[in-house]
């Protein structure tokens, strides 16, 4: 039984990161209707920005993390202004192709700037074990889960209590009506992309400490898509829950069956949920008036 809970703890930690990346994805999709296939690569970008901060610019960890997030936010805003704003009104397939192209460009740029070999952070967040109720949880796992919980709380407050958050919710509901109400939709889109990119980069920052800094992190970022779909494409708490579920399923499958079977279980569960609830666990069915 202890082994089961140990797998669950490990799954919650890595699932928190999937949830963060999925949260960024949902934020962008909910506000702008853009299905951003580059979201996983933004996780990798965050990891490499942190590496640059601590290894190249010799910053202590916390300032390096903050600098990485700020740079990621600026990159997200730039992406919206330069790439996605001109795509408003264009066919969906065209926009999807643009995000795929962006994904490949980010991957290639990372390899050109940082090289293709794996790297480790010269100093890392603490990772020693802590004993809780007979289980071993590492300090880093606790930090990861805590950061994710804080992000969920912060976004909940942001969307409910802040003027900008309300504007984003209004824009997500109906862009035309919100513009008619005087909301600057372009500003909302910029904020959505900036925050979505920064959140994904935060996932990369945590992953760089949990693992090594490698271009292969993009493959982990890809799991944000099933996490977002599982939780509900327009649900922010759903993104986090979806990520946690994916992480736990992965760990349990690896522990009780084999590493190769993990994806079978992850996508099998996704398939089963979508057959029953196509809009995801926390999503809402869309109703169109005819």
């Amino acid at each position, binding site marked *: 039984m202890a*082994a089961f809970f*140990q*797998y669950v703890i*490990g799954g919650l930690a*890595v699932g928190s990161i999937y949830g963060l990346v999925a949260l960024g994805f949902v934020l962008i999709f909910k506000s702008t209707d853009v299905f951003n296939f580059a979201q996983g690569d933004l996780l990798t970008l965050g990891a490499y920005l942190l590496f640059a901060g601590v290894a190249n610019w010799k910053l202590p960890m916390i300032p390096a993390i903050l600098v990485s997030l700020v740079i990621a936010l600026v990159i997200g805003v730039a992406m919206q202004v330069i790439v996605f704003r001109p795509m408003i009104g264009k066919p969906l397939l065209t926009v999807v192709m643009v995000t795929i192209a962006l994904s490949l460009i980010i991957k290639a740029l990372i*390899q050109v700037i940082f090289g*293709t*070999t*794996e790297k*480790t952070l*010269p100093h890392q967040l603490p*990772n*020693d*074990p802590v004993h809780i109720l007979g289980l*071993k*949880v*590492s300090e*880093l*796992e606790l930090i990861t889960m805590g950061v994710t919980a804080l992000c969920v709380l912060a976004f909940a407050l942001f969307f409910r209590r802040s003027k900008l958050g309300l504007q984003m919710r209004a824009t997500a509901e109906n862009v035309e009506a919100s513009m008619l109400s005087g909301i600057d939709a372009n500003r909302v889109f910029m904020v959505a992309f900036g925050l979505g990119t920064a959140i994904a980069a935060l996932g990369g920052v945590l992953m760089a400490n*949990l*693992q*090594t800094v*490698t*271009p*292969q*992190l993009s*493959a*982990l970022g890809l799991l944000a898509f099933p996490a977002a779909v599982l939780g509900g494409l327009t649900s922010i708490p759903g993104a986090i829950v979806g990520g946690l579920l994916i992480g736990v399923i992965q*760990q349990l499958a*690896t*522990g009780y069956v*084999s*590493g*190769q079977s993990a994806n079978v279980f992850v996508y099998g569960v996704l398939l089963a949920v979508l057959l029953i609830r196509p809009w995801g666990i926390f999503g809402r069915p869309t109703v169109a008036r005819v």
Partner: protein
Amino acid sequence: MQSASRIGIALSIASLALGAAACGSSDSSSNASGSSGGGGGKSSPKEGVTSNTINYGLIYDQTGPQTASQTPFAHGFMTQIDKANDAGGINGRKIKLVLGDEKGQVPDGIAAYKKMVSQTPVVGITGINSSSIQEAALPLIEKDNMPFVGPQSTVKEGLVPVHKSVFYIVPPYADQVDVLLGYEQKALNKPKPKVGIFRLTASSGIEVGDLVKAAVKKEGGSVVADQQMDVTATSADAQAQKLVSAHPDFIVVHSAPTQSAALLKSMQKLGSKIPLISTFAGGGPLPYAAVPASVGSTFQYTAPTSPSDIKTDGQAQMEADASKYGYSKDVTDSAYAIGYISGLTVVNALENAGKDLTRESLISGLEKIDNLDTGGISEPVSYSATDHVGLSATRPYKYNYSTKKFEAIGEFSDYTSYITHAYGG
């Protein structure tokens, strides 16, 4: 009707073109075999040799999951080639490296190899380091009689039986397992050990797993856990948990450095102090850089070559060469040293092959290598008609976090008695 006839004509033309291409490629391969099997046939551009250049192939993982270990290997190899070219080349010919990216995938590795047989022909190839790709390529290498020299991994299929054109540098996994098991049993005073295994899902992982199980059983010990990790995976939490809960005396690791690093991070989370010892593939700077000293001190690996921290004349030369050709960052990695020795071996073989360089004469040149001195980086390299493994000795290494240097544990000769030569040689 008109469109149907146009389609028919197009299909006919396409079939003719494919047939012509197939005939052309079989012609070129038979020509290549003919000239290389002629025993003293003249140098030919069809085998990558012109009056002033020698095309030599280097295939390694440039962009895939194993770049961490394979790029330093490639850089070590390139160092020797650059050095030979700066000294005037081989018999008046400069060596031109033709690079291929195996990307850690069998189809990409095979495609890169096939290009070097006929499209951009080479006189020999080094690399194809991933065991799964190597196993897939070996039948083609044999068919083409392509000299294949010194990859990072030595697979059983390439040694048993000995293939005419296949020459390894690194001792086979059978010898590596003999040394690491013998060393740990003695160091921990566990004559009948309980052993855990952590290995890749690649074919070399299967080979190492089988070797460890057979050897441990022979000693009267037991394998208490056997965990596998995919080469593309980056988390080993579940595997580490199963290994730790089985309470082994030590864990044998066979993975790439990335997976070794992931395992060490997971062991750190679990607070484990179980000793880990890796084959050559899983060692190097990356695993030690990933964790603090309290965890890294539990990890050792075996290798047939020494990193530049261990000072000998050969090491000093290797460091100087690395600095000159821009590879200083890689020189502390044992993988760089393997590539450096492989490069030295190839250069020596090309010299032995003489002016009339063909694939066949290169094979003869390789078999002439006897006690090639590496200046203390490794034992001398030797081949014969029946022994195509250049280095037979390997020893364990550890990392000293205080001095930030790698240290050898004993001499190569301390471990030769452990080796049973299960694959011959």
